[in-house]
């Protein structure tokens, strides 16, 4: 299928509009390990992956964090091409690598029709601030390593993932605090419906670094332990998945956002958001059997309120991995897929991924089995 030239000006690309979007593959590089099976087993068992930090390697305000065990760019990807690769880029490249390995080379048969949408918080604040530090402390202000300059630009992880794997479709980077993963998913769905690609590899990555830890600590997000990870899913049309022989794990029935005006109003906003998402998907609250929330009990209560008091299973990630910030809602989506793979949802049942961000936004994704 190609995007045929439309007859009239402004008709736009001919895409898969109206065709159902499905998720057919996923990978997760997390504090549980490089393998998604390890993530699934850990999250579904409610086991924590937060551990003591090596204080020599990671001085700073926190003694504990959820680190991807033994992870480094060179360890995960080999020495070639990783000398100047920073941690968040390596997490992203590795997550994409593992997804492509699972799907096989057929996924990139037409690389210009495969998109990549990757969420980030603010790129690598460690890379950015190290670069400025070198400018401030060197003999000359321009005595900086030019090979590290691209690490200071926030689309580095997405761009490098494309270069590493030869992915030539749209390559977009998305940021939106702790809702980044949901925003990336919605952007990817929009990109697909707009006809700009046939498959989208979509997810988010966040690194643990000493500098990020200091910023989180100073910014007053509390004493919460931090985590890191990279996870991506493969989003495509049901027809495209069938043609490629990939079995849908879940259908993407909608992603919705809403503004809140600060603490105290977020719950009501999320309740309205979940209701709107279900209504637009044409589905009912009783069908929701699983919810992966970002936040704590206030968020959970708001979701339960939207579901009319129904009590779906609650699947928490954040207490187990630490606060993975920009990757958080992507990890929640991965947790839902792990649950689906284990057969915990049956046909016709729904799962929600929800989130409340301190910067004034709530969000919700509706997934169907």
């Amino acid at each position, binding site marked *: 299928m190609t995007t045929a030239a439309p007859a009239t000006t402004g008709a*736009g690309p001919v895409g898969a509009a109206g065709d159902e979007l499905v998720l057919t593959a996923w990978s997760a590089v997390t504090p549980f390990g490089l393998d998604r099976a390890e993530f699934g087993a850990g999250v579904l068992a409610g086991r924590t992956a937060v551990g003591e930090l090596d204080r020599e390697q990671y001085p700073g305000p926190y003694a504990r964090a959820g680190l991807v065990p033994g992870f480094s760019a060179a360890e995960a990807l080999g020495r070639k091409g990783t000398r100047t690769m920073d941690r968040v880029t390596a997490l992203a490249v590795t997550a994409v690598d593992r997804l492509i390995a699972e799907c096989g080379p057929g996924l990139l048969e037409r690389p210009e029709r495969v998109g990549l949408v990757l969420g980030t918080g603010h790129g690598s604040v460690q890379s950015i601030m190290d670069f400025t530090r070198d400018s401030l402390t060197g003999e000359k202000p321009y005595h900086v390593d030019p090979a590290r300059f691209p690490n*200071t630009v*926030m689309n580095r992880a997405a761009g490098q993932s*494309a270069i590493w794997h030869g992915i030539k479709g749209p390559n*977009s980077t*998305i940021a939106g605090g702790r809702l980044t993963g949901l925003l990336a998913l919605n952007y990817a769905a929009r990109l697909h419906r*707009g006809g700009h690609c046939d498959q989208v590899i979509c997810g988010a990555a966040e690194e643990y670094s000493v500098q990020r830890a200091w910023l989180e600590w*100073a910014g*007053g997000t509390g004493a919460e332990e931090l985590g890191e990870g990279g996870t991506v899913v493969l989003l495509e049309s049901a027809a495209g998945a069938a043609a490629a022989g990939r079995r849908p794990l879940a259908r993407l029935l909608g992603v919705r956002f809403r503004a809140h005006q600060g603490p105290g109003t977020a719950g009501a906003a999320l309740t309205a958001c979940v209701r709107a998402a279900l209504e637009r998907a044409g589905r009912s609250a009783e069908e929701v059997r699983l919810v992966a929330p970002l936040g704590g009990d206030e968020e959970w209560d708001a979701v339960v309120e939207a579901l009319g008091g129904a009590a779906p299973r609650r699947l928490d990630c954040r207490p187990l991995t630490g606060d993975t910030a920009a990757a958080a809602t992507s990890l929640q989506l991965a947790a839902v897929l792990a649950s689906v793979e284990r057969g915990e949802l049956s046909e016709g049942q729904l799962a929600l991924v929800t989130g409340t961000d301190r910067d004034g936004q709530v969000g919700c994704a509706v997934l169907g089995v």
Partner: protein
Amino acid sequence: MDEVDEARRAPHRVVITGLGVVTSIGIGVPEFLAGLRSGRSAVKPITAFDTAGFAYSNGCGIEDFDPADWIKTVDPQELGRAAQFSVAAARMAAADAGLAPADLRDRRVLVSVGTTDGESRDLDELIERQLAEGPEALDPVVARRATAGLLSASVVRELELVDAEAVTIPTACAAGNYAIGSGYDAIRAGEVEVVLAGGADAICRKTFTGFYRLGTIAPEVCQPFDRDRKGILTGEGAGILLMESLESALRRGARIYAEVLGYGLNCDAHHPVAPDRDSLARCIELAHRNAGVEPGQVDFISAHGTGTKANDVTEAGAIRQVFAEPPPTVSVKGMLGHTMGAASALASAACALAITEGFIPPTVNHRETDEECGLDPVPNHARTADVRVVQNNALAFGGNNAVLILGRYGPE
């Protein structure tokens, strides 16, 4: 009133009905337009950070921007400079479209803001303080606001929107076109009713230093497509476009600057910083196909045109590959400098004004056109022209290309 249709319904046409611009050649549409017409330039020494030790440090900073003039709901101190720019530009765009914040509150809105550096200027300031006083001394207010998501989320807060989605798109120097393109898709599919989309960035030490080290900062002025061009000048600002469906604009009798005809995106997947001619040519072809235009219909091209040796010759090569006879090809970066994530958004605003006002903005600081580029850059003086279709190119680190096509709306 629920205007939102199902995605499977017939696509909507998408029009631009409001512009908000914060630039070094003028804040607000009238000043910006006057600057574009007269070929204004605002080159001056950078004052955003201490430039001691650099042999040269000209830039295109904004000196007459007072956030309090524009930002009414949010405390400007809670925003970094890039977010201040994006919020101010979004307010302007809504007002320019004749929509009060209250009008937007009962509509479903997407706010989509592109950026290269987010609040890296704050990160510069934080690391400087950290070096002097230790990390325990980091300013909590600055640490809290130094995040890219606030460039879009703060617009929602400022306008007190309700049914809104705020997304920041940090796809570097092509980010503005990415943000506008995604907004176009959202309206076209009937997903949202109003989009505020564009880009914002603030001059910072980090990015100036990186480009300086790469040898791509011009010592004096930016001279796109000139034989003696010496590189970019870093600039700052924001451009936000208010977009809505054609039906919506017609129903409320809004002034229509231009119609968004379509866009194309692709990725070279080849080199982290060097552009790729063939890949860019494919992106231009993709944009033409998606917009339903032929090369011969394009009246002028607003180029990425950074003024570096590599960009301009590669971009010109790609244009000549697609166009048998390239139309006039200009770069507003001569006037504005390279405003990074705001660049293609401000260029889009310039294209929309060019369509409405019937002129082609000039490429300033131009002495002698590089024969290797082989284009008509409309040197130094704006040209009166009947502009129906404009192409706006954007390239970014990571091999990311984004080409947007705008057209004149009107009974033909």
